[in-house]
């Protein structure tokens, strides 16, 4: 039996990194996003530089299935977003 260290339980010592953040996205006629809402303003996606799909953790109740897009927005800034293929919600994340 593990000895009680009497330290209060909590996840304070480990923090998640690079968590996805919900993002408002407008899609166009083609595949992928056409505009992204960044810092309270809409930014046009000039080009989708790369795209890839991940399917993982199939054994869980909610498996991970995402379509990632690396987008070039104004002045060459690169932003990575993904669409959850189960819920169809968009999120912002560094790949």
């Amino acid at each position, binding site marked *: 039996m593990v000895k*009680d260290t*009497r330290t209060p339980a909590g996840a*304070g*010592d*480990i*923090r*998640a*990194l*690079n*968590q*996805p953040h919900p993002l408002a996205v407008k899609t166009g006629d083609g595949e992928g996003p056409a505009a992204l809402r960044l810092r309270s303003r809409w930014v046009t996606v000039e080009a989708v530089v790369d795209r890839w799909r*991940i399917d*993982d*953790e199939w054994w869980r109740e909610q498996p*991970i299935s995402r379509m990632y897009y690396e987008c070039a927005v104004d002045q060459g800034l690169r932003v990575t977003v993904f669409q959850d293929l189960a819920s169809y919600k968009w999120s912002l*994340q*560094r*790949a």
Partner: protein
Amino acid sequence: MRIACVLLNHLPLKLELQRDQNLANRQVVIFERHGSQRTVLDTSPVIQQVRRGMPLQEAQTRCKDAALIEADMPRYQQAFNSVLLRLGEWSPDIESGELGCAYVGLDGLEETYGSEERLIDALLQAVPRYLEPRLGISHGKFPAYLAALRAEPGRAYKPPLGVKQFMAPFPVEVLPMPWEVKARLRSFGLDTLGKITELSLGPLQAQFGPAGTRMWHLAQGRDDTPLIPRRPEENLSSTIAFPVPTANIEPLLMALDHLLARLFSQPEMRGRYARVALLEGQVVRKPAWQKRIVFKVPVGERNRAYFVLKCAVADIVLPGPLEDIRLTLRELTGESGRQESLFRDVRRRDQLRQTVAQLKVAQGKNPIYQVRETEPWSRIPERQRVLVTYEP
């Protein structure tokens, strides 16, 4: 573990009555400030419709004629700390709960004191009589607390064997939960612990989350939270009274210089360093004033400490004329000097260790994190790395 709960009901009120006996014939509400909010801390026993934690505005509508007193928390805490010190002379396992409530571990002490009854008598005698201590004994902190509520002033009480049946009639106000949770329980018609035990765990969890789980277990008489003994703190303090109450900074600085000279000349301070200085002062007709100063680097000599305190108080505005000033040096280290390493990387690590220790004292926890790889091979980005507290 067998635990005794020592309960000092209405501790703030009793201390205020000691200060001003005219309050004995009046209804009193003591409130404390949390930023812009004011909430009730304590009331006269005759005021039944006002509870601790209630917003002061609501309390005033329920009790219009009550005298309002702002809490003097440093004074209440000091009185309570002196009670804890005296209890600590009888048992090494003392945990401080909320103000006026202490838990004492009883296991293994019967042989030392002859019997549990002798120990209980000693614990009751350790508390000043005017505070009217009540003692409750049970397995677990929450049942011991309820037993203390049932005890007569100056007496001890042990619940009968059926703890759940003993606890059933108690109102939900005794639960260690925020006031808003208790108000919601009442709105659902759950006004006693017995009614909570009639429900299964699921509905309470669904409605209240982790608080629902905890209240269900507590209502059953199950409290597995361990007794965490308080760490004895070594402090040095000294007080000086002003001949005339003053709100000016110059007399305050002169008093601090004098107090520092007194403290650093004491044998206990020889070759040691302090991380924190606490200034406390009685303000004329107002609650006590308090300021906590954390030294960026532990200080072991008077002039350096004075320089830091002078910078810290230079721009403050005192809440009123101070009658006295008390300086306490806390978090004393055992260093007898600063021996630095010959090797640069070891010196750097020592510096980091000192900096992290200072930040822990200033902020209560370590705010420095470092990135560590957990599953760098994972295709899911948030699985690849985490932030872990940095321990040099």
